[in-house]
């Protein structure tokens, strides 16, 4: 029971929980940038949490349904409408054959997830249906949706009506704190540079996509340093090394970049910290101009935060079981 794409939205891609095992040849995990919203949308419509759904950025698509379906929309505050009539977010609702689903203007956050009962059934590539745009891999022909695409949908079993209570939905804010574990090449920063990184309120620039999120807010001093042989000439250069997902690099000491799930897998700019896994969802929901503070945590704190994050996922899963 396919879905016809009438309008694609700004950048709508098929995403699931991602692919592992190919980062060593430069193929990143991909998958939904906001994993909690993806898995929750799937559970709402009765799918396995790792089914494929649509990730919509800032502006939603217009979709025409050729058969009855159950749909849920989570993540950014992007109000869904069926034939022009608004539907609730974080709640499974029914769509009938011949209906059109589109979206109002975004009121908060950046990325909405549209799950359909049965899941978006594009071919599995290297273990995942996720779109990796730089490598033209997965999803629909390895690219964002375009008008005229037809999305295959698997057989669904869920019904309408299930919802996620307010207190379990993530807060969407224009002022956020993102927890980081410092390390990697943070010793290339001077003590003042390191302190400034943590004290500055950074502003997200419009350069924010699945590969990375770039911030502005000042320059970070590096130590007086001759780059090692092979690295290049700039003090921020290192011998090209692997980049952790969520790592923050600072080319030239200006404009920190958080690499997200379509990360370039390595390169020659010093990385100074890594965003803890659960807070990548917070980054995913940051729209340009979001005021962002980076808060240093220890590995133990990061692991405790991870347990809290997983516990919230389990509460939702139990609720919607």
């Amino acid at each position, binding site marked *: 029971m396919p879905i016809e794409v009438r309008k694609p939205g700004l950048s709508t891609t098929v995403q699931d929980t991602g692919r*592992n*095992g190919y*980062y*060593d*040849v*430069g*193929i990143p995990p991909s998958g939904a940038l906001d994993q909690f919203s993806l898995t929750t949308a799937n559970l709402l419509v009765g799918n396995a949490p790792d089914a494929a759904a649509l990730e919509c950025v800032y502006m939603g698509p217009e979709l025409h349904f050729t058969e009855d379906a159950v749909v849920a929309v989570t993540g950014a505050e992007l109000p869904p409408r069926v034939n022009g009539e608004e539907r609730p977010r974080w709640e499974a609702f029914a769509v009938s054959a011949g209906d059109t689903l589109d979206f109002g203007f975004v009121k908060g956050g950046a990325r909405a997830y549209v799950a359909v009962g049965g899941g978006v059934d594009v071919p599995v*590539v290297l273990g995942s249906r996720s779109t*990796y745009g*730089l*490598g*033209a*891999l997965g999803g629909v022909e*390895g690219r964002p949706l375009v008008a005229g695409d037809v999305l295959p949908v698997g057989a669904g079993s869920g019904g309408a009506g299930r919802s996620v209570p307010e207190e379990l939905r993530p807060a969407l804010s224009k002022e956020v704190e993102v927890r*980081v*574990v410092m*390390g*990697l090449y943070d010793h290339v920063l001077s003590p003042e540079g390191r302190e400034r990184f943590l004290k500055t309120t950074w502003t997200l620039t419009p350069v924010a996509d699945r590969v990375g999120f770039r911030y502005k807010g000042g320059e970070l001093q590096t130590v007086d340093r001759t780059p*090692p*042989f*092979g*690295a*290049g*000439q*700039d003090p921020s*250069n*290192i*011998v*090209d*090394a*692997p980049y*952790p*997902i*969520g*790592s923050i690099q600072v*080319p030239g000491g200006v404009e920190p970049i958080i690499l997200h799930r379509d990360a*370039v*897998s*390595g*390169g*020659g700019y010093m*990385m100074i910290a*890594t*965003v*803890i*896994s659960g807070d990548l969802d917070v980054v995913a929901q940051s729209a340009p101009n979001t005021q962002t503070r980076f808060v240093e945590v220890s*590995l133990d704190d*990061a*692991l405790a*935060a*991870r347990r809290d994050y*997983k516990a919230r996922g389990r509460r939702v899963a139990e609720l919607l079981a």
Partner: protein
Amino acid sequence: MSDTVTPARYSWGGDEHIFVELAEEMSLQANFRAMAITTSLCEERPDGILEICPANASYQVRYDPDVLEPTVLLAQLQEIEKKVGDASDFSLSTRVVEIPVLYQDPWTTETLLRFRDRHQDPDATDIEYAARINGLAGPAEFIVEHTGSPWFTSMVGFVAGLPFMFQMVPRDRQLVVPKYLRPRTDTPKQTVGHGGCFGCIYSVRGAGGYQMFGVTPAPIYDPLQASPDFADFMVYMRPGDIVSFRAIDRDEYEDTLKIVEDHDYRIRSRDVDFGLQPFLDDSDGFNARLLEVLRAD
């Protein structure tokens, strides 16, 4: 050699990664340690490992800390480091491959001219600049150096299937160039580039900061796996591959492209064994033998 081995530096990359720097500077010895350690870890592969990424002079492991305790993994990696030592007894069964290059081609030339405002020397092309700062008379002499000795693939990544290559010559003969002052937003697909001491082949079109010298007609990434080189996997280059560049003219470029478009092209490749110590003992002789193997028949 063992007295030159510095202890590895371990760092947490958030709650899912361990980053390990074997040396600050690039060297074949550091790369060999990264390969030996990651090969050993691949063999042991404890539950909870998601990714094992060898790199130039470092490596990284991504893991699920709910399955594998970070401190347990760290101890295991330190144990492997000790076991591997200077990696002098590690050897690789690998390939030597030939990559044809049209140097100073129209496409990278057009692209580099569009981004002169981001370059150290706006009045020269990338290859003219690279020749000058490496003390060479001009592009022709640069191409002789670039094609004269083979390159060791010390890392694959940045984007899907992009090889970082380290020329197999003593340090005083290495070609070294800075990266662009600010990265370009565009690089033609299959551009042969260079930054720091590393050569690369851009597997896909996209952003990039390396100097651009030419373009190869040989695809090294094919997500549709339409050609015989990609029958098993969509990525051609692997860490450890030894690469020899060969300069071609425009006619050969066009002829090769036709074969590529018919999905009949195969990169010339021969199996070889590579050990660090035999290479270090006589690098020029070793390289000459590699090229003989590559070009026999």
